């Protein structure tokens, strides 16, 4: 394993052998930057040879990074934070110096539930508030009829999926603990479980929503991009000591991924990217299904016309790869909100420092690419595309509102949580 070598071997671009790095990933469309870095030669340009290992569970990803089987991995954004804080398992400090993209998830509901929502006034393609109002009506009438609460699945309890599903439900007056049942299911089981009516809906990344639509087992009701435009999703996670031990390799990998994400974000590359990801070694789904997530033209219900969705999955634009510490703090706030951990300034500080804009800047400083000056921002404050202070002075961030209009100020977490009725 590369990490077992001598310290003087850190330099990635020695004349001789490229430095080998082993990266874990889960078969999802948003693992694309890793695949592109390898397949399009961006890693090789940086003197790196990547071995990509497809994993079956997020728990394996976390454990294999922790014990050094993997140098780094495609990780759920909150996962390195949870690992650092010791939520749910062994405390193992991790860092996230690179965001693999924004958005890309959706909430898919069973056709039966969606039909009931339509009867309550919902129309396909409406916003999260309208969808939520209809879902609340369905939940209410089920309760009145003495029916079992809806069962909704997420891929992991420490995931953007879990937090955004709860956020949406709570904002629409559905108590995520009392009014519905939230369970964990591996994404590969979502479609079957929906078809067999073991679940009434799920929140997952692509291709699973589109596959459920194709199987007639689900209707895409809400996209993450509609809940929180430019919301953070996967990151590249490392164990914390990797940065001290292998600084040059880490930097080389970030540069390779930066170019890979840029390539993956370009629409004219999407047909090639869809074919690349379709391989059974990577995502293993039909290219036409993968292309939906890449283009953001989602088919919400089987047979429906594709609907273009702005910023559905952003690989590179709007500083998508920058590891904003306001993102790590928002994830921490949601861990507190759903009772996974207590609130405390020291814990918040520990959570903030898991995301490492300093390493991102350090890796990219010499490349001339534009870098934001700030390390955190008020999330959900931009109604329109807005220029922000950056090294080259020309960085445009996209509109990023939360659907309920609540901005998140990372300097005011306590007030933010209290506004949601969380007891601290």
């Amino acid at each position, binding site marked *: 394993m590369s990490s077992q070598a001598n310290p003087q071997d850190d330099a990635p671009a020695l004349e001789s052998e490229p430095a080998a790095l082993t990266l874990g990933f889960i078969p999802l469309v948003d693992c694309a930057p890793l695949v592109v870095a390898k397949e399009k030669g961006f890693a090789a340009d940086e003197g790196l040879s990547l071995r990509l290992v497809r994993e079956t*569970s997020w728990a394996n990803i976390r454990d*294999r990074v922790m014990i050094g*089987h993997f140098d780094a991995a495609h990780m759920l954004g909150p996962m390195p934070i949870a690992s650092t804080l010791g939520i*749910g398992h062994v405390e193992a400090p991790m860092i996230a110096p690179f965001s693999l993209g924004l958005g890309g998830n959706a909430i898919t509901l069973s056709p039966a539930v969606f039909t009931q929502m339509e009867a309550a006034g919902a129309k396909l393609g409406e916003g999260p508030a309208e969808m939520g109002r209809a879902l609340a009506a369905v939940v209410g009438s089920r309760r009145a009829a003495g029916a079992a609460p809806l069962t909704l699945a997420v891929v*992991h309890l420490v995931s953007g999926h879990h937090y955004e599903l709860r956020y949406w439900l709570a904002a629409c007056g559905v108590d995520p603990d009392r009014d519905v049942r939230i369970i964990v299911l591996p994404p590969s089981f979502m479609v079957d479980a929906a078809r067999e009516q073991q679940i009434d809906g799920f929140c997952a990344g692509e291709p699973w929503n589109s596959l459920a639509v194709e199987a007639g087992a689900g209707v895409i009701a809400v996209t993450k991009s509609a809940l929180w435009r430019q919301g953070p999703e996967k990151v590249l996670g490392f164990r914390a000591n990797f940065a001290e031990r292998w600084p040059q390799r880490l930097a080389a990998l970030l540069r390779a991924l930066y170019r890979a994400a840029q390539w993956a974000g370009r629409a004219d590359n999407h047909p090639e990217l869809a074919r690349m990801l379709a391989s059974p070694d990577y995502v293993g789904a039909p290219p036409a299904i993968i292309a939906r997530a890449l283009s953001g033209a989602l088919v919400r219900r089987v047979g429906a016309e594709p609907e273009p969705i702005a910023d559905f999955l952003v690989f590179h634009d709007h500083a998508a790869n920058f590891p904003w510490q306001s993102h790590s703090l928002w994830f921490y706030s949601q861990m507190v909100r759903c009772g996974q951990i207590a609130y405390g300034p020291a814990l918040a500080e520990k959570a903030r420092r898991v995301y490492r804009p300093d390493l991102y800047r350090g890796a990219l400083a010499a490349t001339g690419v534009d870098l934001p000056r700030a390390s955190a921002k008020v999330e959900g404050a931009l109604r329109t595309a807005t220029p922000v202070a950056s090294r080259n002075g020309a960085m445009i961030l996209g509109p990023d509102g939360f659907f309920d209009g609540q901005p998140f100020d990372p300097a005011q977490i306590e007030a933010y949580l209290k506004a949601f009725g969380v007891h601290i």
Partner: protein
Amino acid sequence: MADARLHILVIDDNVARAAVIEAGLREAGHSAVTLITDMRQLLAQIVSADPDVIFIDLENPNRDVLEQMFQVSRTVRRPVAMFVDQSDTASIEAAIDAGVSAYVVNGMRKERVKPILDMAISRFNAFHRLREELDRTKQALEDRKIIDKAKGILMKGKNISEEDAYALLRKTAMNESRRMADVARGLVTAAKLLS
């Protein structure tokens, strides 16, 4: 001395491996062992088994389902925790290298169940060795069959002895730095195409 009162749950959709683990546990004196090999409604199955210790194989995507039980919630009466703690990274590594992950019900003293973890790890390793050996044996058998076929083709086509046919295959393999079986396979395919 095995702690026979502990209820152990093994989750593995590889039925053969699950049986090997179960046998090991029973031999060590653990009589309360439950196997889950059908992953449908897994959480409900775990809750109803009500185990003290849980083993799950790492190829199983349901590890994430199981870890739902880390959280105190109304679905789960007895929350579980990862088996090993901070100080015991060697055990984590050994378990993951062997392809198994272990959990205990919260509050269970870990030293009480450590021997069970060690046993499961060694059984997993033994199972993998067995499977590798089996794979190797199968491969050797297949190789021999294909080499025999290729020899036959050479003997007939070039009118040479079995010994010479074998030597020719071996020499070609050495010259091309390929396995003999691969050279033989190429020859058999080519002969099929030409016939």
